[in-house]
């Protein structure tokens, strides 16, 4: 049983091949990290999985269903959620309202044209849960645009989680963060993985985060699959060392 089955996907932009014939299988409850040097095609690969654009060739199967050409909103309904390298939030709304929008969308209230209603209590409960889980309860009524970068990222992850996703895609969750914030976000991801058994695929540059969190690692280089394995296998892989780890940092 696989949660996500990416089959030989290729993405071409004009004459440039950003991703070439890459496959990946992610099991339920797995935490998979995708690493690779800049320009390896990691984000392009991610964008195909999440439905930002369709692959030129190849297929993406999510939970047994072919989703290759499905639009984003349908994938979200099926249980896919993602965050972005540059935090995507609703800056001029409060943390609570940010999360409320996710909860209401998840509960299918998008076309309710009046306030309140019989779902209001369940919505408020779900919002409080998300706030507690992400540790943002003290900042709930502040505008999310005023928060620190780390807290904004936590808010974005909390919004993604309101969808109760069966697959969580995180694009560089610790990008642009200091030591302390990186630690906090890594801990949040660890809790989601260990305690709540979320299936998570993440792109990450911070190798300590990757090697501490991941069950398996997929290494991309120049748009191609370079290696795949457990953190120990990847660390010992001479090809990876030569092509990537040796050069970086």
């Amino acid at each position, binding site marked *: 049983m696989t949660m996500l089955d990416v089959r030989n996907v290729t993405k071409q932009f004009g004459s440039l091949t950003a991703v070439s014939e890459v496959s990946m299988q992610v099991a339920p409850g797995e935490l998979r990290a995708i690493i690779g040097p800049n320009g390896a095609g990691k984000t392009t690969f991610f964008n195909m999985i*999440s439905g930002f654009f369709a692959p030129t060739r190849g297929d993406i199967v999510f939970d047994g269903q072919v989703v290759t050409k499905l639009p*984003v*909103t349908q994938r*979200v*309904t099926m249980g896919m*959620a*993602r965050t*972005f*390298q*540059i*935090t*995507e*939030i*609703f*800056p*001029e*709304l*409060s943390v609570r*309202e940010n999360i*409320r*929008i*996710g909860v*209401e*969308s*998840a509960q299918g*209230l*998008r*076309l*309710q*044209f*009046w*306030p309140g209603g019989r779902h209001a209590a369940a919505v408020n409960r779900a919002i409080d849960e998300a706030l507690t889980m992400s540790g943002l309860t003290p900042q709930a009524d502040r*505008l999310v*645009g*005023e928060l620190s*970068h780390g807290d*904004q990222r936590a808010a*974005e992850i909390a*919004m*993604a989680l*309101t*969808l109760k996703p069966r697959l969580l895609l995180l694009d560089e969750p610790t*990008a*642009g*963060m200091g030591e302390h914030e990186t630690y906090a976000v890594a801990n949040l991801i660890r809790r989601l993985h260990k305690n709540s058994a979320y299936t998570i695929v993440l792109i990450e540059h911070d190798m300590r985060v990757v090697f501490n969190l991941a069950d398996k690692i997929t290494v991309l280089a120049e748009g191609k699959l370079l290696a795949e394995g457990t953190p120990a296998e990847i660390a010992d892989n001479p090809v990876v060392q030569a092509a990537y780890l040796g050069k970086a940092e």
Partner: protein
Amino acid sequence: MSASTLVTATAVTPRPARPWLTTAIVWLVLLTVPFWLPMLGGYTALAGRVLVLGLAAMSFNLLLGFTGVMSFGHAAYFGLGAYGAGLTLKYLTASTPLAMLAGVLLGGLAGTLFGLLIVRRRGVYFAMVTVAFGQIAFYIAYSWDSLTGGYDGLRGFTRAPINLGFTTIDIVNNDKAFYYFLLVIFAIATSLLGLLLASPFGRTLLAIRENERRARFLGIPIERHIWLSFSISCAFTALAGSLYALLNNFADPMGLHYSLSGEIVIMAVMGGMRAFWGPLVGAALFVVLQDYISSETVNWMSFVGLIFVLVVLFFPRGLLGMLQNRGGGR
């Protein structure tokens, strides 16, 4: 690095601390206008104009201020509302409610159908096609002499008294009665807009305004929701247009012209597009300035333009946005 600078650079608008206070003041003023306006040298029909254009600007602002989508052609729906009401009164039936209904249907359906064609456009492209549609509507009204009266406008109809069964309200000759009739319609319309904005659907619009990409990845179908917002906005604007025809007993092609679309934008921005009542405040300022300055000079618009520039430069959140901010702090 680039991520953190981008996010922290986002301008953040403080929220007004007491929105109910603004609402209370607005209603106190609107309810008492006919009693003090004449003492200041105004006349009741002027207050009626404020209500009608205020409703148009608030309806438009559902799109600009609360969905983040710019239309430069809202006069089209205003004008269609006016013609719908006028033509009904002139050719079909002497019923004020039916005239209003016809106006709302004509403008609202035109917006709904046209919206379907354009929701995939964004930004300046969206704005340009809305202008284009407005001008199409303008030239139809302008050229179809036999039906619309062409350049001279549609005349020869008057609003009819309101029959409530047990009594009849004379809104034809009694200015005050007509003002309060307008106020009742205005109250119903703005309450519906307020409820809509406080609903889960309303929040999906805020989400689209704030961040389309995040909204989409929360499962909100952006195009469908922009289309609904556009349609609702057009229907309410058409309601304002039908009231305009009742106010003047007249509908003319200038009610469809892009210059009126521009004036609606000016009202919303000048009053404060992030504040619910902002466009009404903008409309009040605009109508009063227009009335006062146009009696002194035909170049009144250049003065209104100057004031608009000053407001945008010094109070970028608009007049009401600035007042609410000062009154409440953070």
